[in-house]
């Protein structure tokens, strides 16, 4: 039977250089709902070096309590100090639910924590709920996305889940909220850690255009149909107007319409934006493999037979070079009206 000593819903706040991952705040929103249903309180776990400023932000997003582990060993993410510290924290305070973002770091950490705690973990959830017995219902796609599986952890505690970014709604920020900060020490000293970070090579600082692409919510994709480097600006204008990023296909790179950094596809970058506008993109399978999970796909192509129409939500049959400027001016018009 489940250990009834475990109480409370925790959300791990993933941060890098003092900035939290968006999914962590989304999880506070979801966590608040769960805590309400369970009649318990919502706490955030902030781990970092000089990360105290995140506590206030956590309160603003709905946490009632923040467990803060502020120590130089947490300067860079490393599995060992992070997971050992969380395990120590969990053993001390015994939360019944522990949520993490399904990001690179979150998945690494969650697995290590769950293994050490000998509890279950549901990876990549898209929905969370509480059943009438007070168990956490963790729902995620299974069998290649063919069914949704709901998983419970009836005995082991805490009930752990990682949640996909943007699966939950970002809660409203309320800066007037306050809460209690509980400081805890790191579970491990620097000398005892086998892995040292010598240098962080950040592709963002090396001027690569790809960094923004994986997280972009709106992507305008340049295909061979854009024809020339000169026309590339038309798409950049639309992207700027919509607050999105420009991507491109393999063929566009080949024709030197767009640089390699922007390349989406099987061996390029995989993207999952909310809106993907494919301009003059035929939709070869190697490209589709990199973008087919986008939310809304808008295809602009004069060829009705182009395979891009197989995956698109909306299609605009026409020359993208005429359609795009029209879209840009319409977006600008809408924005002006709004402001």
């Amino acid at each position, binding site marked *: 039977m489940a250990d009834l000593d475990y109480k409370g819903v925790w959300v791990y706040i993933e941060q890098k250089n003092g900035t939290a991952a968006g999914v962590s705040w989304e999880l506070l929103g979801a966590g608040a709902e769960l805590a309400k249903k369970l009649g318990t309180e919502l706490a955030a776990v902030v781990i970092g070096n000089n990360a105290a400023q995140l506590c206030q932000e956590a309160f603003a997003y709905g946490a009632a309590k923040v467990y803060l582990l502020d120590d130089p060993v947490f300067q860079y993410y490393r599995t060992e100090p992070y997971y050992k510290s969380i395990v120590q924290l969990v053993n001390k305070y015994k939360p019944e639910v522990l949520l993490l973002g399904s990001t690179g770091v979150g998945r690494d950490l969650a697995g290590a924590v769950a293994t050490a705690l000998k509890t279950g973990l549901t990876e990549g959830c898209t929905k969370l709920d509480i059943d009438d017995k007070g168990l956490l219902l963790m729902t995620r796609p299974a069998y290649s996305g063919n069914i949704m599986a709901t998983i419970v952890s009836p005995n082991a505690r805490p009930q752990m889940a990682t949640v996909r970014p943007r699966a939950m709604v970002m809660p409203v920020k309320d800066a007037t909220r306050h809460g209690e900060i509980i400081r805890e020490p790191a579970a491990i000293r620097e000398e005892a850690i086998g892995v040292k970070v010598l240098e962080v090579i950040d592709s963002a600082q090396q001027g690569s255009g790809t960094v923004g692409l994986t997280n972009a919510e709106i992507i305008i994709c340049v295909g061979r149909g854009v024809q020339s480097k000169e026309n590339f600006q038309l798409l950049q204008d639309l992207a700027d107007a919509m607050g999105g990023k420009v991507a491109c296909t393999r063929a566009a790179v080949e024709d030197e319409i767009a640089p390699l950094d922007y390349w989406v596809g099987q061996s390029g970058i995989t993207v999952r934006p909310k809106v993907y506008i494919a301009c003059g993109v035929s*939709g070869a399978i*190697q490209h589709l493999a990199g973008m087919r999970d986008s939310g809304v796909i808008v295809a602009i192509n004069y060829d009705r*037979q182009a395979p891009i129409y197989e995956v698109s939500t909306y299609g605009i049959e026409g020359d993208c070079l005429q359609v795009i400027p029209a879209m840009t001016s319409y977006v600008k018009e809408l924005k002006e009206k709004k402001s």
Partner: protein
Amino acid sequence: MSSRVWIFLGVAIVAIAFFLWSAYRRFRVIGLGQPENRFDSRGKRIRSMLFYPFTQLCTLSRSYLFSINHAFFFWSFLLLIAANVITLLWGLFPGMLPGGLYPVLALIFEIAWVIALLSIIISLLRRLVFRPKYTLPMTPDAAITMSFFVVLFVGYFGFQASEIARGVIKDSSLMPVSGWLASTFMGNATETPGNVFWWLFTGGLLGFIDYLAYTKHTHILASIPNCYFRSLEKVTTQPREDFEKSKTLGVGQIDQFRWNDLLDTFACTECGRCTDNCPATATDKPLNPRTVIHDLKYNLAINGRLLLTKKEAVLPLIGNDHEGSVAPDAIWACTTCGACMEMCPVFIEHVPKIVGMRRYLVEEKSQFPEELSKFFENVKQRSNPWGLPPPERVKWAMPLRGKPYLPGKTDYLFYVGCAGSFDTRAKQTTLAIARILDAAGISWGILGMQEKCCGDSVRRLGYEFNFDKMARENIKLFQDKKVTKIITACPHCYSTFKNDYCQYGAEFEVMHYSELVSNLIKEGKLPLKQNADLGKVVFHDSCYLGRYNGIYQAPREVLAAVSGQAPAEIAHNHEKGFCCGAGGGRMWMEENLGTRINTKRVEEALQEDPKTICACCPYCITMLEDGLKEKKAENNIKVLDLAEIVAGALENKDRAKNSFDLTEK
């Protein structure tokens, strides 16, 4: 016995003992290799060992003009072995002058010597004056070997001429060269010149034998055994890996090759026919099959002795520049097209060696081009290269409302394959095949969502562990469904089922659709009208159809039946067909080094000025279409799958019977 015999015996025994000792030292490292049974079917092996070298078909059948030179040299060399033995004995026992037929033999020997000398001169000119690109420049090694030959030549004829001049040989009418030499240079000779020439000859012969074991000319010693120990089947697959026992997966050190792979390196004489036909070499990739074999031999020379004495190897097998013998970029550049093996006169197996090293990189080191991590993950999780949801496998068949394979009721399993199921372009081929099968009234069905990737790319890329799992699962599925006959759309699925799965004891009757269609047309079961609007058609041989499985004629016959004339040939065709660039898992990798293989192939095809390029493989179709786009020729020239051409030529009534349209998606 004269003192000469004793001196000769002394020298000869030392020389031969030295030769045996060096040959033993050189070749014993072969024993370091992993076990492989090449000792079966002795009769067949002996026939192969006699047939290929002695007819010289091993090289003559590879369509190189220069092979004729080699053949004449080889045959005269054989005759000269007899000439040499006779000359040796003659010098040792002067009284035992051969009589009887000897004058005729002497003539034959003289002709053989002249032919041998001529072919050496031709070889020299070829290396020095008009050197083909694929051959290596003249090496000191080769120069020394050739000079030995000249020494033998001088010794032989000098001896014969002195014997004529001395009057030992009375009738020199059938000895034009020695006779002329004797009458021109040797008036009334003493014994001395004869002795000098004989010793020159003997020294040259023994020296040559001793030198042999230290040069690339071990080819002379190792290539005939290599014909004995060759793979009796065409090399269309790679050996299975034992996951239970072996310590290391794949080949990361020279002694992890099979012993026959090591023997291969000695059989190589670096003729360069492999290199001349390698699509990677032709497009300036770091892969050169001849260099790979040479570098393996060098690695074996450095490490072999250490490994024999249980010491650590000092030269790594895989590494960049001077860090290892074979660079990872070379290993990954291979398309496994098999042109190297097809062209190799001494049956060297390049591709299994390269795949062996890939296995080590993938399974032991996790070092592979980063694009492949996505591919491996997708295949592992969803059993298709793009990671698409398996239910989408059946989408192409929507217009057919599904056509499941029913065990016991359906004759043929139509195995669609990943490309044919998911790739919009290849789906058109799939539909075309479906229409053809229906038009011919064949009972067929598909596995639908249960179909999985065949594992071809996975195996060629060296992820053997996963291939092993995929092969077992597929075989089980086929057996559960009581499948006996399989039609495939893709040559890669075809070859994998036919040549790879049989390593698991699975025997299915596998057919590529082009074979089936060719048979159907011959039997008059396919109602065709001739299709006029194809224009000039060229046919591109897919490696896994042609070279791997010998299917060259079927697609050409089908094209001829449909278009009324045989297709035109691209410069490289049939056995010499040039890969599209996507085989061996290259489909899933970037081609960042050198120029593009597909572009080169398309350029070659464009020289024939075709209207249609026909191929029978979804990879080829993709690569050729991309190449056409690269050349901005996609509006004038079409790349069509053979099935599309045939389906387009079906008589209208058969079109009507099938309610779906090719363009429907």
